[in-house]
């Protein structure tokens, strides 16, 4: 264990370089650059609010913030898991030439996406101020679902990245699964209508929905977290990370033969 930690610290400079590269290249050659991390979610929120507020029966004054939080969390999960999934293949040039612990690649992708996600959080504050959402102490609890989301994304990302080395199909399959997850996460609609129709289980089994709900509870509604959702998402996050690390370590020596 101690060996693992010293090894990890030895490569912290490489990790920070890879994270920096991800973020730098994403916004290079765009005039607004990093400002897009704020603008893009804001614009998407406006579009979704206009489109979906026409379809809803009852009014909710915080609806734009409801959409914004749901979409931000989902986008982070989708982008980081997709990037981590492709991490081994896109870095095959380096992997074949220099020895580097391979988990660095999916890890750096999840971290860079998390930083981009954190950079876009001021938009949440801004929209909350505009909508006059009352601030409560529960806002601090909002950190917990974010930490869980990071852990879950890393775990799922590591499982996917190890699988994608052996089966390219995973990449196509995962984008379909992500779409399914999106529609099952109540991002731009309220869950009541689905629950009324007897499909409440869709939300019960969806760990991302549990995380989004708890984040909304603490940020928008100023209530404490849903305990069942908290327990479920905690178990799922740590479970996926443990399985991800185990699976990745078990398969990593075979990566080079398949890339």
């Amino acid at each position: 264990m101690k060996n693992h930690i010293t090894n990890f610290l030895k490569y912290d400079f490489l990790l920070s370089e890879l994270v920096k590269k991800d973020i730098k290249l994403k916004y290079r050659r765009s005039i607004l650059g990093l400002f897009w991390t704020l603008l893009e979610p804001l614009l998407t929120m406006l579009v979704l609010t206009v489109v979906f507020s026409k379809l809803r029966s009852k009014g909710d004054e915080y609806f734009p913030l409801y959409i914004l939080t749901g979409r931000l969390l989902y986008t982070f999960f989708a982008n980081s898991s997709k990037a981590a999934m492709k991490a081994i293949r896109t870095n095959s040039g380096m992997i074949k030439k220099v020895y580097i612990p391979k988990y660095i690649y999916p890890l750096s992708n999840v971290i860079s996406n998390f930083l981009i996600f954190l950079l876009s959080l001021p938009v949440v504050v801004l929209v909350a101020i505009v909508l006059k959402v009352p601030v409560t102490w529960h806002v601090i609890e909002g950190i917990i679902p974010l930490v869980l989301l990071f852990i879950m994304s890393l775990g799922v990302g590591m499982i996917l990245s190890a699988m994608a080395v052996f089966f390219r199909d995973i990449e196509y399959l995962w984008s379909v699964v992500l779409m399914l997850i999106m529609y099952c996460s109540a991002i731009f609609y309220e869950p009541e209508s689905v629950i009324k129709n007897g499909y409440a289980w869709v939300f019960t089994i969806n760990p991302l929905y549990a995380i989004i709900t708890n984040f909304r509870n603490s940020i928008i509604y100023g209530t404490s977290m849903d305990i069942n959702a908290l327990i479920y998402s905690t178990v799922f996050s740590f479970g996926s990370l443990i399985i991800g690390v185990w699976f990745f370590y078990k398969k990593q020596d075979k990566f080079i033969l398949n890339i």
Partner: protein
Amino acid sequence: MKDVVLKVDHVGMQFNLSAEKVDDLKEFIIKKLKRQITYKEFWALKDVSFELKKGERLGILGFNGAGKSTLLKVIAGVLKATEGSVTTKGKVVPLLELGAGFDKQYTGKENIFLYGAMLGYTKEFITRKYEEILEFSELGDFINVPVKNYSSGMKARLGFSIATIVEPEILILDEVLSVGDAKFRKKSEKRIKDMFDKGVTVLFVSHSLEQVKRLCDRAIILEHGHIIANGTVEEVSAIYEEKLNK
């Protein structure tokens, strides 16, 4: 015993050559159920053992497919041996396909830091050596241009300059460096010669017996993954010449 910097101990490297390439999930499951996946075992290296003392320069001879590159990759740590072990002391610098780790969209300067980090250098070290790397690579203003616009010679020059900025204990060379133009080649050969003089341990792979004779003091011959000769460069090259003329 204290002078041994590289110890290769009964290393074997096995590859599975599946008769058909299966890389989609459906095919894999179907074939697995039908038990149609048959692996042909193939040992690229088998029972390879040798030791190198500090300052020794080992030439690795062998025909195509003898396992030379595989051996270098195992020593560099890129491939993990199926059996046996490799112990190294000190910093190993592999000069294999220079510049393969560059990011195309990154500029030369950014790549110096990225590639340096991959080779395990610290940030302070690269910052301190940056000017020296730049000067040696002769890239001038091109250092702020994305690497995708570089010629292959420029890329190799930059890769060589970064990789050789440290003084490694063990240097791995695959073929002699034909980097850049004649002028740069002279410079890079001088840098490697300087390392030789400082007592670096060298592993050198080449098809050219001439080069091996010129650069190395020891040699081995690999054939089908086995070491068939191990000794001084004179003895081994005599055996190799005999094999060539057969």
